[in-house]
């Protein structure tokens, strides 16, 4: 069987801003295929979260970010900071797609001693921070945004967070600092999938968008699994007006695979060996 993500080695250009919504949709689908393969190799994982941010990653990597497929350390690159390190499966899938992670390395995901662990570690090309401990992303993104501004680089920092992660106080320390330092080269994207380790979000998180607005962020709230809405939101947040930007994404855990979407305990998914084939069939038939 042809392996998704390898048969269509990308013709990525810099910048890649001319992708259509349909092309981005295809990229998101390919990421989901790759993730499902990675998870089925292991039999378990944070698949639901990976599926729910596939659309975001497609838009970020194939429309928003300027990067060099041949040089992950390019000093002028835009940076994507994945704060929820346990979403590693999704980040690895997209880094594989753009050529930073080899097929061999991807196959070793989560195995003993593998470079690609269940959490993200920043010694891997394209992984900007070590992200397993929540609440570490936004503060480092603020530092990167300050560093870029100091060097007069026009590049941007896009930092992903999750709704459960907003319970960490360090997120709000960073949110306050970003607005105070007028970092309009920083975009926070908050994956609100409504789940965390103990089940549905254990604290009343709402109104999330208003919290970011109150902290001084130019904030949009959209369906995070709607590629066109993602494109429109990023387009609406390009102003150099001294305000950091935030997009609150309403997402569905397990998006694209109905069995996973309806699963009650979706934070860490274990699937029986014989179920993977049917999940794969569901993904294919829900391509949309």
């Amino acid at each position, binding site marked *: 069987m042809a392996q998704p993500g390898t048969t269509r080695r990308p013709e990525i250009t810099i910048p890649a801003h001319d992708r259509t919504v349909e092309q981005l949709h295809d990229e998101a689908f390919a990421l989901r295929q790759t993730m499902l393969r990675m998870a089925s190799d292991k039999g378990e994982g944070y698949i639901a979260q990976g599926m729910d941010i596939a659309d975001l990653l497609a838009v970020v990597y194939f429309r928003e970010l300027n990067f060099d497929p041949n040089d992950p350390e390019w*000093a002028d690159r835009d940076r994507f900071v994945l704060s929820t390190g346990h979403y590693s499966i999704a980040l690895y899938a997209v880094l594989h797609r753009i050529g930073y992670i080899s097929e061999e390395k991807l196959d070793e995901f989560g195995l003993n001693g593998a470079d690609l662990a269940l959490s993200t570690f*920043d010694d891997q090309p394209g992984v*900007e*921070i*070590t992200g*397993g*401990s929540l*609440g*570490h992303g*936004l*503060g*480092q*993104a*603020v*530092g*990167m*945004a*300050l*560093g*870029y501004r*100091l*060097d007069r680089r026009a590049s941007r920092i896009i930092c992903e967070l999750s709704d459960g992660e907003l319970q960490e*106080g*360090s997120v709000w*320390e*960073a949110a*306050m*600092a970003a607005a*105070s*330092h007028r970092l309009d080269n920083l975009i926070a994207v908050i994956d609100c999938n409504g789940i965390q380790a103990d089940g549905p979000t254990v604290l009343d998180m709402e109104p999330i968008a208003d919290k970011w607005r109150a902290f001084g962020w130019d904030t949009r709230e959209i369906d995070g699994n709607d590629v066109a809405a993602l494109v429109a939101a990023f387009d609406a947040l390009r102003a150099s007006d001294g305000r950091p930007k935030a997009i609150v994404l309403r997402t569905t855990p397990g998006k694209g695979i109905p069995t996973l979407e309806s699963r009650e305990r979706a934070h860490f998914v274990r699937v029986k060996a014989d179920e993977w084939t049917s999940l794969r069939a569901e993904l294919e038939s829900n391509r949309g």
Partner: protein
Amino acid sequence: MVDLKSGRAGGMGEILDVEGPYEVAPLGTALVELSANRPEIVGLTADMGRFSDIHAFRDAHPDRFFNVGMAEADLLLIAAGLAKTGKIAYCTTYSVFVTRRALDFLVIACAHSKANVKILAGMSGLMNPYGATHQATDDIAVLRMIPDLAIIDPCDATELAQVVKAVADIEGTVYVRSLRGKVPVVFDPEEYSFEFGKAKELRSGSDVGVISTGFMTQRAFVASAAARERGLGAGVLHVPTIKPFDTEAVLRFAAGVDRLVIAENHQMSGGLATLVTEALYDAGLHVPMIKIGIQHRFHECGSQAYMEEKYGLDQGRITRAVIDGV
């Protein structure tokens, strides 16, 4: 004995009981000198600019200085982020806030990422009048267990200035037990040279050997001189780099003396004395040892002199240990 009622619980992390000379704010002066030709150096504080002496840097390079507010987790995260864009990030706050409040961020975002973050931490040890909330008597014990983190405990204004400059060229994260305000000058800058990872035998003598770190080396010098007047040869090995630990120098020094006195402004367990004990035991070397340090307990508020005398860090205590062996 310092009288509790007549003594004023002042002295915000300053050592004021030595004759001097003193230098004011050597951290700020050194950082300004260093950064003149090093545009990659940035400075940060968590609302502790005034009380860490980094304001001189802020005044010299306002564009490179960031006050992140009372947010120590964010201080280290922002510093790590800046480091990831090629900066060398000097941060100041108090030791207690680094080792207690922001430890996860120090361990993962800084040390694990080998981020070029240099933490100049104030009031390490028993060094202020505020009581246990502000007294980092456990910082070395906490931090020595963290891989890829260097720990430096300078003695005086001369060494602190040298350390501030040296850490810029030490790859990765470094924690410095800084000194603020009026800082005594113990070492002659023409003669003394800090070397990262190296302990220095600054006084020789084979009857008794003092192994000391931080400002306790000044007290060790005074004790050594007093011992010499009694015809006793008291060597002093100054250990400014706690991690990586200079095991070789410690073993060489210990093998050449009849007995040891270990002096540190830190709890007696988990710091210098523990490191020395481990080194000696591993090498099969047994040398009688007196530990001068802080007891394993929370401490009350009080002036520096009051606290030192009450808890056995003062000059008299060290001199007794060196001369009388008790």
